[in-house]
C-alpha cells in the first residue's frame, strides 16, 4: 500500500496554425517541431513502459486545436515532407562529419531518431498520431484531458457565459470524435479558473480539472489538506491543485533540472551555425534561418564556448535527476501522510512541449522516473486524478479562487498594454454570436453553414495564444493579424446573416481554411 500518489499532468497544446494558401508557412513549423521533438518521443516512452510492464500512469491534455492539426490531411502530408527533408539533412550531416567521430555519432543519433519518427508516424499510425495516444488511454495508462476548444482564457470571457460554455462544449464534443468516449477531465486553458466555471464543467459532464496552488489555497472555506488532496466544487466537479515544489524542480530557472550543464543546448542549432550555402535547402525560403532540430552542443556553463554534447553523460544526468525527483516526492509524501492522516496526491503539471522540444532529455527523464518508481520504492504510486477520486471519494467542498498558472498567477499575461485591445472585439463578437444563434434557431443549408463558420471564427479569435504572443514580444505581427483576421471574418459572416446576402465564395474559402470542428453546431450559443 503506497503512502501517497504522484500525478503527472502534461498539457499538450498548440494554436491552430494552418495555411493552405501558402506553400510553406513558418509558424506551421511549431507543429512539426513538436511532433518530432515532443509528441513522438513521449509516445515512444509511454509505449516502452507499457511494453516492459512498468506500472505507470500519466495524464495529458490534448487541446482540440492540436488534435485538429494532428488529424489534418494537409498538415500531415506537410509534416512527412518536413521529416523527409530532415532525414536527408541528417544523412548529409553524417557524411559531413565523417572526420569527426564524436559529431558523426550525434548526427547518426538524429538520423536514427528522424527515421524512427517516420516509421512511427507513417507506418505505425498511418499519419494520425492521435491513434497512438488513444491506444495508451484505452489500455489504461494514460488519462487524456480535454481543454478549451481553442484554448480561450476563460476568466476574461466570463461576461459572456455562453461563450465559455461553447469553448467547453465544443472541446468535449470534439474529444469524443477523436477518442471514442467522453472526457473525464479538463485542463482549463492557462489553468485559468474563475468562480462559476465549475457549473459549466458540470453541465458538460466533466469530473475534474486542475487548478494552480493559490487557486485552491485561497479557496473558501479554507482547504484542510492544502494542495495535497482534491476538493469538490459546489456542483460536484473535483479540483486538483498544482504542487509548487515539484513544479519548481523541473521549471525554475535557478533550481530546475533542464539547466544542467550536461544537457543539450537549445540555441546551438545547425540551422544557424552552418554555412548558408550548405543549409539553405533546409531552412526557409529567403534564407530565413530556423531551428532544424540538429544541435551538437551541451549547455556547458555560463560561457559562449560550448562543449560538444555527450549523449551518455546527458542520459546519466537525466537518470540522476529522475532519482532526485523521486526521492523528494518520497520524502514529501512520507511527511504529508503523517500530517494528513490520508494519502496525499502530488499533482505535477507541465507544458508537454517542455519535454523534448526544450528539454531534450525530458522524455528520458520521465522514462527513468517511472521505471525507478516501479522498481526502486514503494512509497509513492503514479495515479490519475480519476483513480484517486475512486479511492478517495470523500473530499472537502469549497469554492476555489480566481487564478491561473501564468506569470504572477492571475490574468496579467493576457490583459496588459500589448493585448488588452482584443477584449472589446471578442466581447462584441461573442455577444453577436449569441444573438445570431437565438434569432436563427432553425437555420439550415447555407445559412447554417454561415453560422457554423462564424462560430469557428469566433473560437479561433479567442485563443489565448494570440494575447500571449503579443505580450512576449516575438512574432507579434502574426498574433495581431490572426486576431484581426478571425474577428473580421466573423463580422463578415454576421453581416451575411443579418443582410441575408450570401457570398458563397468567401464562405467556402473560410471553411476551407479554418476547417476545424467539423461537427460544430452554432445553436449551442443559444442554449442555457
Amino acid at each position, binding site marked *: 500500500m503506497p503512502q501517497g500518489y504522484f500525478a503527472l499532468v502534461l498539457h499538450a497544446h498548440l494554436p491552430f496554425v494552418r495555411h493552405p494558401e*501558402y506553400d510553406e508557412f513558418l509558424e506551421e513549423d511549431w507543429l512539426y517541431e513538436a511532433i518530432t521533438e515532443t509528441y513522438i518521443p513521449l509516445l515512444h516512452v509511454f509505449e516502452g513502459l507499457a511494453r516492459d510492464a512498468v506500472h505507470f500512469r500519466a495524464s495529458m491534455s490534448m487541446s482540440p486545436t492540436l488534435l485538429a492539426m494532428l488529424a489534418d490531411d494537409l498538415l500531415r502530408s506537410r509534416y512527412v515532407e518536413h521529416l523527409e527533408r530532415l532525414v536527408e539533412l541528417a544523412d548529409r550531416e553524417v557524411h559531413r562529419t565523417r572526420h569527426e567521430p564524436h559529431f558523426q555519432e550525434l548526427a547518426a543519433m538524429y538520423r536514427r531518431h528522424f527515421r524512427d519518427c517516420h516509421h512511427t508516424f507513417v507506418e505505425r499510425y498511418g499519419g494520425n498520431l492521435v491513434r497512438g495516444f488513444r491506444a495508451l488511454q484505452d489500455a489504461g495508462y494514460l488519462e487524456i484531458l480535454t481543454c478549451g476548444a481553442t484554448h480561450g482564457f476563460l476568466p476574461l470571457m466570463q461576461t459572456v457565459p455562453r461563450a465559455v460554455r461553447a469553448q467547453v462544449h465544443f472541446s468535449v464534443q470534439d474529444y469524443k470524435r477523436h477518442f471514442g468516449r467522453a472526457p473525464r477531465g479538463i485542463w482549463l486553458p492557462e*489553468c485559468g479558473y*474563475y468562480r462559476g466555471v465549475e457549473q459549466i464543467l458540470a453541465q458538460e459532464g466533466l469530473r475534474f480539472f486542475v487548478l494552480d496552488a493559490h487557486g485552491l489555497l*485561497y479557496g473558501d472555506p479554507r482547504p484542510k489538506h492544502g494542495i495535497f488532496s482534491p476538493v469538490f466544487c459546489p456542483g460536484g466537479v473535483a479540483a486538483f491543485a498544482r504542487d509548487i515544489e515539484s513544479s*519548481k524542480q523541473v521549471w525554475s530557472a535557478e533550481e*530546475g533540472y533542464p539547466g544542467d550543464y550536461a544537457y543539450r543546448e537549445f540555441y546551438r542549432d545547425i540551422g544557424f551555425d552552418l554555412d548558408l550555402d550548405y543549409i539553405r535547402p533546409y531552412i526557409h525560403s529567403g534564407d530565413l534561418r530556423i531551428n532544424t532540430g540538429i544541435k551538437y552542443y551541451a549547455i556547458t556553463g555560463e560561457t559562449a564556448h560550448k562543449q560538444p554534447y555527450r549523449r551518455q553523460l546527458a542520459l546519466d544526468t537525466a537518470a540522476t535527476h529522475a532519482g532526485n525527483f523521486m526521492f523528494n516526492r518520497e520524502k514529501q509524501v512520507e511527511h504529508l501522510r503523517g*500530517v494528513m492522516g490520508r494519502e496525499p496526491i502530488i499533482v505535477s503539471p507541465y507544458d508537454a512541449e517542455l519535454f523534448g522540444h526544450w528539454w531534450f532529455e525530458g522524455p528520458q527523464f520521465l522514462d527513468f522516473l517511472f521505471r525507478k518508481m516501479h522498481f526502486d520504492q514503494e512509497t509513492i504510486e503514479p495515479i490519475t486524478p480519476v483513480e484517486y477520486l475512486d479511492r478517495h471519494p470523500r473530499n472537502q467542498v469549497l469554492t476555489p479562487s480566481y487564478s491561473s498558472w501564468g506569470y*504572477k498567477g492571475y490574468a496579467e499575461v493576457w490583459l496588459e498594454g500589448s493585448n488588452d485591445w482584443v477584449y*472589446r472585439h471578442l466581447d462584441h463578437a461573442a455577444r453577436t454570436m449569441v444573438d445570431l444563434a437565438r434569432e436563427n434557431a432553425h437555420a439550415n443549408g447555407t445559412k447554417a453553414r454561415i453560422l457554423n463558420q462564424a462560430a469557428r471564427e469566433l473560437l479561433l479569435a479567442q485563443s489565448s495564444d494570440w494575447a500571449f504572443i503579443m505580450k512576449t514580444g516575438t512574432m507579434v505581427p502574426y498574433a495581431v*493579424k490572426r486576431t484581426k483576421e478571425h474577428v473580421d471574418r466573423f463580422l463578415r459572416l454576421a453581416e451575411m446573416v443579418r443582410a441575408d446576402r450570401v457570398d458563397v465564395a468567401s464562405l467556402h474559402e473560410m471553411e476551407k481554411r479554418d476547417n476545424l470542428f467539423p461537427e460544430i453546431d452554432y445553436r449551442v450559443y443559444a442554449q442555457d
Partner: protein
Amino acid sequence: MGDSKLPNGPGPDRDPRTPVDRTKPPREWRSRPGGSNAKRAQVEPREASDIEGPSKTSATEAEASRSATRVPASTTPVPDPERAPHAPEEPASARPRGRTEPVPSAVTETADLPTRYGVDRLVLLIRDPHWCYAWWEITDACLQTGRRELAEPTQLTLRFYDISAIDWDGGNHHAVHDIEIHDAAGSWYVELGRPGAGFVAEVGWRAADGVFRPLVRSNSVALPRESMSPVVDENWMVLEQEYRQLFELAGAGSGTRSSVELLRTLEERLRRELLSGGVSSFGVSSFATRRER
C-alpha cells in the same frame, strides 16, 4: 559547402546573433532579448510609478478628498485601446512562393477592426487581486439622454461602487470612487486595491451639483483574495499545527509564531513563487522564439 568544419564556440567570425549565455534554459526561454523579461523591465517601473505616485487624474484627487470613506483606488490612464499596437504589417512568415494559388481578397485582407460597434457597454475584467481593467463604449444617442436636465458643467465619469458582501440595490454600497473620463469609447486600468472585495461600475454624467446620472452599468466583479479564507468548515477543521506541518514551516524557529504569522509566511512564500516566474507556463513562446536576424 562541403566539409566545412563544425563551428565550435563563437570565434570572431561567429554570428553575433548567437546567444551567449544559454545556461539556464527555462529562463532564457522566457526572456529572449527584447522578450518577456526585457519587456517586464520596461513595463513594471511604469506601473510601479503609477501605483505609488500621485494619482494622475484630478477627479481621483478630488474624490479622494471629498469622500469620507478612504478611496482605495488610484488610476492609470491607458492609451486608446484602438491605437494600433503594431502596424498591420504582413508577417514575415507569410511569404507565398512557388505555385501559390491566387486568394480571394475577401478573406486575406486584414482589415482594421471597427473602432466602435454602436453599443452601450461597460465591462470590468479582473487583472489580479488589486487591479481591474474597464472598457466601455457609449453611443451618441445614449450620451445625450437626459443630459440637458443636468446642472452644467457635466463631466463624463467612470464610477466604481464597493459592493462587498452586500446585495446591492443601487444605493447601499460601501464606497464610491469616481474617475473622470473623456472618451465615449475608452478603457482604464484601475487599482481598486482591495483583494477579496466586490465592485460594480457605471459610466455616467456627473453634474455640477453632484447629481450622477448613470448611462451604462458594468458586470459586477469579485477581486480574488490574496490570502487564506478566514472561513473554516467545521467538518474540515484546520489546526494551526497541521498547517505548519503541511507546509513545512515548523522549522526556522517558528514554534512561537501565531497562526496569523504562520499564514502570512505561507502567503508571502506563495507570492514570491508567483512573482519569480519560475513556475509560470511558457505557452507557445518556445516555438515562437526566433533569433534576431
